[in-house]
């Protein structure tokens, strides 16, 4: 009996002391007698803030120079060397990050997430190129974007794509930016950064698939000039809006066009508009009727877009890890016994209840519901407007760059025989 008491006592004593220590440290730090000096934990500082501001300065300089070369000195050489610099600095030295294209998501997130405040650098990288473009055209694309630069330098023998294909593929950037904004606003993912095809090349290190993607873009880019810029880049949507209404866009000819047609094939991006042939317009019977019909169709396109968005919101929301996990646990409860599913096991061990998870997932899905409908409606509007644009004829007497699509690369100027 006495013995049992003794054992119990020791047991409790041990238990007690153990919990006490566990609250501090299981094994207290020893007191050294040999004069041992404890090393420091090494924590190298991140890149200095001053350097980030320096990047902004470089951006402003490059933008100004690109504008100067494209509009003032009209020098392709200048633009070319500038893109080499951009490729080296923003591409290989800065590893393609920070970038204006990705900054779309930071701006979106700063509006959608009250706990996230955008950094000044990211905001400036988003705003500055757009502001420049509003006045001078897309000179950012000509010389200041590393993604554009790497594609520009591999153009060997650009082929011209049929107009309908150009227009159809040109819708992809609208879809891309809608999805990117949707995913950023719901705090799901930054898809622009994740699927940036060239960042792996800039870093010289990436997952195999991304390297394949980047290399295939470059290979394709030898013949279809700047495929990412024209058919994917989400930032190009905003840039092209700005550029269409730019005040001083570059011109092919320094004085007056003499219709020599020498520049017609000079643009690798099919961005030169030819003079309109009025006879043909009259003959094709396009006109007010067609215009009205397409205009009436726009609300229908928008409605269809909203419908498609509404239908696809469940699917889209599965990209969110919380929604995905909640769905998985509801539809497939046995998964709880799968020791290899890290996400499920971590969730179970975290002590978070199923209700909280489902609630959180529902909030996110609600955001997707609204967001997908807006994105869908926007896409409908874009499709409707694109169609409408095909029947609008602006009178053109000369060969002029299409302000929205022109990347201000300055190639066409070398072909114009007109002297100043």
């Amino acid at each position, binding site marked *: 009996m006495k013995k049992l008491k003794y054992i119990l006592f020791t047991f409790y004593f041990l238990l007690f002391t153990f919990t006490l220590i566990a609250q501090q*440290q*299981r*094994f207290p*730090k*020893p007191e*050294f007698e*040999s004069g*041992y000096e*404890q*090393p*420091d*934990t*090494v*924590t*190298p*500082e*991140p*890149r200095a*803030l001053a350097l*980030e501001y320096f990047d902004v300065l470089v951006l402003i300089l490059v933008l100004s120079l690109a504008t100067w070369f494209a509009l003032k000195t009209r020098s392709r050489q200048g633009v070319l060397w500038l893109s080499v610099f951009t490729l080296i600095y923003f591409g290989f030295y800065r*590893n393609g*990050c*920070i*970038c204006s294209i*990705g900054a779309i*998501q930071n*701006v979106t997130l*700063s*509006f959608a997430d009250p706990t*996230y*405040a*955008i*950094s*000044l*650098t990211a*905001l400036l990288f988003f*705003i500055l190129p*757009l*502001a420049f473009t*509003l006045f001078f055209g897309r000179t950012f694309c000509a010389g200041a974007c590393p993604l554009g630069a790497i594609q520009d330098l591999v153009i060997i023998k650009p082929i011209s794509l049929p107009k309908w294909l150009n227009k159809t593929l040109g819708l992809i950037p609208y879809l891309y930016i809608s999805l990117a904004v949707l995913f950023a606003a719901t705090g799901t*993912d*930054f898809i622009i*950064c*994740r699927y940036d095809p060239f960042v792996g090349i800039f*870093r010289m*290190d*990436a997952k195999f698939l991304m390297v394949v993607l980047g290399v295939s873009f470059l290979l394709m880019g030898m013949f279809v000039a700047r495929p990412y810029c024209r058919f994917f880049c989400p930032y190009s949507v905003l840039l092209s*809006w*700005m550029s269409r*209404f*730019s*005040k001083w866009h570059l011109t092919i000819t320094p004085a007056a066009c003499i219709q020599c047609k020498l520049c017609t094939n000079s643009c690798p991006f099919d961005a030169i508009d030819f003079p309109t042939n009025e006879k043909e317009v009259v003959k094709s019977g396009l006109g007010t009727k067609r215009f009205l019909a397409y205009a009436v169709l726009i609300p229908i396109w928008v409605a269809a877009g909203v419908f498609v968005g509404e239908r696809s919101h469940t699917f889209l929301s599965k990209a969110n*890890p919380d929604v995905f996990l909640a769905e998985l646990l509801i539809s497939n409860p046995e998964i709880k016994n799968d020791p290899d599913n*890290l*996400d499920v*096991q*971590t*969730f179970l*061990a*975290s002590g978070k209840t199923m209700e909280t998870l489902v609630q959180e997932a529902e909030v996110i899905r609600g955001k997707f519901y609204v967001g997908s409908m807006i994105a869908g409606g926007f896409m409908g509007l874009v499709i409707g407007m694109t169609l409408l644009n095909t029947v609008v004829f602006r009178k053109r007497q000369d060969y002029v760059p299409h302000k929205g699509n022109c990347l201000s690369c300055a190639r066409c100027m070398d072909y114009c025989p007109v002297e100043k």
Partner: protein
Amino acid sequence: MENNSKSKNRREFIQSGVRLSLALALGGVGGLALSKVIEDDWVWQIDPFECTQCGRCATDCVMSPSAVKCVHAYDLCGYCDLCGGYLKPDANALSTAAENQLCPTAAIERKFIEEPYFEYHIIEDLCIGCAKCVKGCTSFGNGSLHLQIIHDICLNCNECSIARVCPSDAIKRVPASEAYKVKGDFTNNPES
């Protein structure tokens, strides 16, 4: 001709109108965002108290090997002979032979200090951030070994690709002026 210049004038008028609205929109977006802007920059960091040592830090960083490394908060270390982060739990003989070491890359250096204490030091170049030692140290020791994103290696991706897959949401944006959450300097242990 007269007609022509009229329509040209009209077009120019519309153009500058739209340009003005675009400028205003741009200014509006910029201004709104500016009202919340921070001077500091964001970097990514692991909260060691939330990390569950799942191992994804080693596999999901865009860098290979990962920018996540084990750091040692020496203040918390017990300098144990039988280190739970250094030796495999089932190590049969007390020997520091390679087959008994927990770290797959032998990145932990063990140094005798004085009887019976040993210092453990992480060789950063070898560490791949697999969290095996962290798990051992947290389960059997003081938890002085833990993971941190090392900022002279990290590229500071716009969105950290590990943060996206971290099952415990342990990786968050932190201001660059407080770029580390080294245990000891920083405590938010819910139990303490």
